[in-house]
């Protein structure tokens, strides 16, 4: 088989039973692999009354047909499960969840012979799984329980006597079922969204280690080399990609500041007066060298080291824009060294920096507004920028030490529900998840992308980079209106987001990094070229877009079956109702309604309910989904 490994493992950690079987052929045909294949598998395996932290929630690792090849950025993996963090049906039901992770685990899993690893059940004792060239072994992990993710990875490599073993693990946060827990790999790589580290913790799976000596068969090796050489040259000549090569996503801090969309003090402001202290310019002092994920000519990450002062000895990788903003502007903190330290701390404890930062920023605003005080915070002083208290608090959250830390361990959305007193209005979220620190009142299209993202608030589901990348002429051609590429425009945004979502769904399903296909390589023809050279098939760019649409459709169907309605496709209070306080978009809110309607129309979804249409589902070859939804009365004609 070219491209795919051809088999999957279903690992029942309750019964300690392992089934190795062929990768679902219909899944591959309709959904390619990675995210798409996982979404299809989750749709099939889960019933609507699922408990995200119960034994029936499958935790699925999936890689795609071009994973582990010469193709730039072909090292991603998607982890999928029902999310314990994100919600639909007005907060009453769990939402679809997935998270995408870079590094080196995905390719190694493919070399070990698997397209998918599906973990079901719950172990009584801590375990870790070792996958070695087609063999699956469940091993005791009592000695690893409690270790941080860096120690865990090192210990397992030593124990298995192989430095080429790739490991993903959870830290204390996942063990203690903190809802914002991530699955970590290779120091700083994270499957962070949707609290999937918590699902792994609920199964008592401390880590998964893989080692494979196999390979990925390529149908047209010479053609692949040619395409990749062309792709690299496009990346090297694309200013936007070159910026990522130099400074990574930290470049966004200055860009967002200038544009007035930098999440500051829990989105009360959209510009941060001390932004220069935490910008990529300031970071260069600490950077030692660039670092790359698997087969990546972009190498957007950096190793950093702090040599003196309060945080001397801190050595790590990163930080990404989201972390810089989460522990910088968003909590009013201008101390860059503390952000580097907090980045390491979260990586080691296995916490998502975005959603954990969200809980803290929310708590700080509650403090500012007098909703909580020292008597509620177990003595912590939560004034803006008080990074020392934040460090203490994060250590407590990961271990659920004390009542207040335990409250924040539920994430801002659930915590606010418990606290009440108007604090619910201070949570900035979509379906329970922070959408990613680019203020949607300035970035209108991004707001729509957040509102409809299938895994809850997320900037990467659509990542509408074409908004700043396409010319007005191209905008008219692709999306019907010139203002589709104006940040404050409204018309054409629905179609822009639809098209972007489809692009990203394919990148996630081939498992190529979205940063590779972000600007110069954004067109579907490149994804088709990659796919065809590896697998020998002849998919057209049009079919790429249709496959993307199908992936969005099954994720939508999953959420609709969970109880999602149009009311869930919205933004939280501040984004819709409180005018932005400064910057180029001063006075604006997100004008979601017309964009959402255009989006629904472009997708063929019902304007009243948000349900899919039967005919569209059939057109996408999802008749069986249409039938199931029809029985539930959740589809229109």
């Amino acid at each position: 088989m070219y491209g795919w490994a051809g088999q999957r493992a279903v690992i029942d950690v309750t019964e300690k039973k392992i089934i190795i079987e062929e990768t679902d052929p219909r899944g591959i045909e309709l959904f390619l692999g990675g995210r798409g294949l996982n979404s299809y598998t989750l749709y099939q395996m889960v019933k609507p009354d699922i408990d995200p932290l119960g034994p029936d929630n499958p935790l699925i690792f999936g890689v795609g047909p071009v994973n582990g090849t010469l193709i730039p950025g072909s090292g991603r993996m998607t982890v999928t499960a029902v999310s314990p963090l994100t919600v639909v049906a007005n907060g009453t039901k769990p939402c679809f969840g997935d998270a995408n992770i870079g590094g080196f685990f995905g390719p190694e899993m493919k070399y070990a012979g698997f397209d998918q690893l599906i973990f079901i059940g719950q172990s009584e004792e801590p375990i870790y799984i070792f996958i070695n060239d087609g063999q699956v072994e469940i091993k005791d992990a009592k000695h690893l329980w409690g270790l941080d993710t860096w120690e865990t990875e090192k210990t397992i490599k030593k124990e298995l006597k192989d430095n080429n073993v790739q490991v993903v693990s959870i830290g204390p946060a996942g063990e203690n079922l903190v809802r914002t827990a991530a699955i970590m790999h290779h120091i700083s790589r994270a499957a962070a969204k949707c609290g999937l580290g918590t699902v792994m913790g609920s199964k008592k799976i401390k880590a998964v280690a893989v080692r494979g000596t196999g390979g990925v068969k390529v149908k047209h090796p010479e053609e692949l080399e040619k395409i990749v050489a062309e792709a690299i040259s496009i990346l090297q000549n694309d200013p936007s990609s070159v910026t990522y090569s130099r400074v990574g996503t930290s470049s966004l801090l200055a860009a967002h500041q200038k544009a007035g969309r930098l999440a500051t003090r829990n989105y009360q402001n959209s510009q941060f007066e001390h932004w220069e202290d935490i910008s990529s310019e300031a970071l260069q002092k600490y950077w030692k060298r660039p670092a790359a994920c698997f087969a990546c000519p972009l190498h957007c990450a950096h190793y950093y080291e702090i040599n003196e002062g309060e945080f001397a000895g801190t050595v790590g990788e990163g930080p990404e824009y989201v972390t810089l903003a989460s522990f910088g502007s968003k909590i009013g903190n201008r101390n860059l060294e503390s952000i580097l330290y907090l980045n390491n701390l979260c990586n080691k404890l296995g916490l998502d920096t975005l959603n954990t930062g969200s809980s803290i920023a929310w708590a700080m605003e509650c403090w500012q507004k007098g909703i909580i005080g020292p008597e509620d915070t177990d003595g912590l002083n939560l004034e803006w920028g008080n990074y020392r208290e934040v460090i203490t608090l994060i250590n407590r959250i990961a271990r659920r030490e004390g009542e207040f830390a335990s409250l924040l361990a539920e994430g801002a959305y659930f915590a606010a529900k418990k606290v009440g007193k108007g604090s619910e209005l201070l949570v900035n979220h979509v379906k329970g998840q922070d959408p990613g620190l680019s203020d949607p009142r300035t970035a209108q299209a991004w707001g729509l992308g957040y509102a409809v993202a299938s895994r809850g608030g997320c900037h990467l589901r659509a990542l509408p980079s074409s908004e700043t990348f396409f010319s007005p002429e191209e905008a008219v051609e692709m999306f019907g209106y010139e203002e589709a590429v104006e940040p404050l425009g409204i018309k054409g945004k629905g179609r822009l987001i639809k098209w972007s979502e489809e692009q990203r769904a394919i990148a996630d399903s081939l498992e190529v990094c979205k940063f590779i296909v972000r600007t110069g390589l954004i067109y579907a023809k490149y994804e088709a070229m990659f796919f065809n050279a590896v697998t020998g098939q002849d998919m057209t760019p049009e079919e790429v877009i249709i496959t993307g649409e199908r992936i969005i459709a099954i994720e939508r169907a999953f959420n609709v079956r969970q109880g999602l309605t149009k009311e869930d496709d919205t933004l939280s209070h501040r984004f819709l109702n409180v005018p932005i306080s400064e910057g180029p978009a001063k006075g604006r809110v997100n004008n979601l309604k017309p964009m959402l309607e255009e989006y629904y129309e472009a997708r063929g979804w019902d304007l009243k309910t948000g349900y899919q249409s039967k005919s569209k589902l059939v057109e996408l070859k999802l008749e069986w989904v249409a039938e199931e939804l029809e029985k539930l009365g959740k589809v229109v004609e």
Partner: protein
Amino acid sequence: MKSRMLINVEPSKCTGCRMCEMACSLIHTGQCSPSLARINVVKNEEQGINIPILCMQCSDAPCITACPKEALYQDPDSGWVLIKEDLCIGCKLCHMACPVGAFRFPKETKKVVKCDLCGGDPNCVKFCEPGALQFTAEVNFHQRKSLNILSAFELKFDNEKAVKHNPTPEGIRI
């Protein structure tokens, strides 16, 4: 003998992406597989140290001395250490003698393979974006090599060196 063309390794430029492994295994086997690649990146993740390991083309190669079947030889024209695969019996004595561990043993053939510089146009060099691998004439090669290895442990960020192309200051896009 005129100076040989060799692959010069500068570990300090290596980002650890392992694209070289992909390029190597793809051109030699039609598969992308690190275990079939004749170059491998040895990594220390916590320190961020990456060292590509491949045949260093020793002028007095211990693997040639060790081979009982005279399967390994130094090519008189190129000066490279190469294998006559049909003579190899897979005893791995060459690997034991090799100071860097440059040999691989594909399961299917049970014969050793090593870097053959792709006959003069090494694929790994072509796909090494950061320029950690260069195909160059052997001038002061041995001095350079030891300095290169040392530099792998010397953590000093050089932003301009890190990318081949000059950035556009206005080019920040979202």
